[in-house]
């Protein structure tokens, strides 16, 4: 049977308070830090009062309240530490506590490097392939046909190089956005033969930008 969430929260809390009130004695309090060592925490002065009677009960509750406040502060501190640890590893270079990783140029550069590493591995795998003349010829032809279709927008490729499992295609990007609009449609048209594409943008000697596509018949998982 599923208990309501409020029950799951309220019952242990109430139980904790009742048990503490029943068994509490004026003893120094201890708790463990993250490293496992025992650290004393602030013991409220009121706990020095002998237990018993109404005044002592009130003092005991006050002591518990103080302890809860102290624990709240500890939890808040731990929460901040967890938030910092949850940031991407690349963001650790930023020493500013609580810095927004979205605004961190180092983290962005790290993400770009990660993609470049991925592209480099795809490029290395492509260059290690021996040529399969039959597949290479038919696939190159299919790519040219797709690029020159009206739907894709009659894109001219600077270079098409197909090996055994994948092709490397260089496309010039004039920056008008027409290439970007066409790319998903090109991917659709080639899906039967080459379902996976990895892309990288490169700068050419004349300052123009070119897009390098690695089209593979292997589906990456």
């Amino acid at each position, binding site marked *: 049977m599923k208990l309501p969430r409020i029950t799951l929260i309220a019952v*242990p809390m109430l139980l904790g308070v009742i048990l503490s009130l029943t068994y509490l004695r004026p003893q120094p309090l201890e708790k463990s830090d993250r490293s496992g060592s025992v650290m004393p925490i602030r013991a409220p002065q009121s706990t020095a009062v002998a237990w018993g009677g109404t005044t002592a009960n009130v003092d005991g509750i006050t002591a518990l309240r103080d302890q809860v406040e102290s624990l709240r502060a500890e*939890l*808040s501190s731990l929460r901040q530490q*967890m938030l910092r640890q949850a940031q991407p590893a690349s963001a650790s270079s930023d020493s500013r506590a609580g810095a927004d990783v979205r605004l961190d140029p180092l983290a962005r550069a790290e993400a770009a490097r990660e993609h470049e590493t991925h592209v480099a591995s795809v490029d290395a795998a492509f260059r290690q392939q021996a040529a399969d003349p039959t597949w290479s010829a038919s696939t190159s032809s299919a790519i040219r046909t797709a690029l020159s279709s009206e739907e894709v927008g009659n894109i001219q490729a600077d270079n098409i190089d197909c090996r055994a499992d994948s092709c490397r295609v260089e496309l010039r990007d004039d920056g008008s956005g027409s290439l970007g609009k066409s*790319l*998903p449609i090109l*991917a659709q048209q080639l*899906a039967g033969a080459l379902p996976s*594409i990895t*892309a990288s943008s490169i700068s050419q000697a004349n300052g123009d930008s070119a897009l390098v596509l690695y089209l593979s018949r292997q589906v990456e998982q």
Partner: protein
Amino acid sequence: MKTALSFGLSLVVGTLGSVSFSGEAHAVNSNNSGTACKNYNASQVADIDYLPSGARNLNASSRYVVCPVVRSTTSASYGVSVYVDGFAAAGKTISCTLYSYDYNGTFLGSQSFPTARTGTFDQHLSVAGHYWSNASVLCLLPGSAGGIIYDVDVVQ
């Protein structure tokens, strides 16, 4: 006595902890309804029809729709992984491509259905992507309401 006190405090700590951390953001799965899909080409806006469960194409010819992939990028994981759910009537097919772009408009890559799907399908796709990248799914819907995209479910 000390044990009892510790137990009581532990309960309080556990309670406070559960309350304090319940609001934390995590990378979570996200189910995006097909009703968020739109016409890819401006002139075809009137061809796309919406059902409570998704989007379809009313034109006699096939039409592209583009569906957003809404992600919660709180982790440093590389890549975008989705399942595309839909249905194509007998004799009709649907093919989709998941693609991603960097925050600066750079195309990162794509993955398409290896074969166009007929009937009810739940097709997995994955593509390059990172913290700042965005992804979408482009689907070619058959004409005459012959197919529907139900949703794009992001797995994180």
